[in-house]
């Protein structure tokens, strides 16, 4: 009976360890995919690092994997890369005062168009 319990315990430990490692591996893989999809392959034409097989993309993929393994989060890895390659490496630039017009301009146009549209509707 004791031996049976011991084996049950072993099986339980094995199950927990296996689930944890496969979950964390999947988690890293998902985060890796998400992040590399947001990074620009600087030697390609409008391709993300994830989609590219270029030497540059391979290098960045390797670095991203290493940094995740070191325990850095997405923001820290992005900062690490932008320190060297600038914001150009991000397919979606940061929201900053420098990029304010780029982010706000479509909304300004939308609001203006709506105002003109409402005004014309009222007139008619």
């Amino acid at each position: 009976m004791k031996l049976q319990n011991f084996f049950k315990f072993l099986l339980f430990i094995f199950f927990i360890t296996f689930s944890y490692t496969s979950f964390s591996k999947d988690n890293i893989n998902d985060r890796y995919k998400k992040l590399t999809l947001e990074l620009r392959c600087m030697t390609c034409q409008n391709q993300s690092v994830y989609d590219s097989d270029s030497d540059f993309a391979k290098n960045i993929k390797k670095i991203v994997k290493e940094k995740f393994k070191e325990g850095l989060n997405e923001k820290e890895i992005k900062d690490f890369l932008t320190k060297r390659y600038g914001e150009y490496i991000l397919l979606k630039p940061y929201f900053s005062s420098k990029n304010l017009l780029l982010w706000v301009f479509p909304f300004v146009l939308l609001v203006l168009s709506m105002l003109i549209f409402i005004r014309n509707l009222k007139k008619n």
Partner: protein
Amino acid sequence: MKKVTLLLPLILLITVCLFFLLFILFEKDPNNPPSVLLNKNLPLFSSVNLYNDKEYLASEDLKDKYTLINFFASWCAPCKAEHNLFFEIKKEIPDLFIFGISYKDKPSDSKKYLKQEGNPYSFVGVDQEGKIAFEFGVFGLPETYIINNKGKIIFKHAGALTKKIIDDEITKLF
């Protein structure tokens, strides 16, 4: 006429926004994005000499002199196109320390390449894994940087140098 007057603020706003957009995008060549390292300190690195594996050159060694750093490889065709220009730069600016870094290239291939094309470099470093290039934000070969005597990066060019770039941009820095 009334319609035009009504739409005038909108036309004005769009013109102003377009002007700003053009200003933001002006001179932003997607093939040659601006380097974030410009006007910043030289990244820390240490590189072994291609011809002597006991000799190293570190970033600290470059802080008291003007240095041109060129990333090249024997397998890179544009590097070959600009190679002879470094002899001209050497002639025009004799005090400039020209530091060539062999990027992801076999040392034997780099040696063969420099034997064939001539060696314009004051020191040839090796960066087989691309770690030094990564610190500089290199994304394609060739790339050239100029560091001033205070250790700051004052010039960067991605792609092959031309005589025009040397005359218009590089010689003006000295």
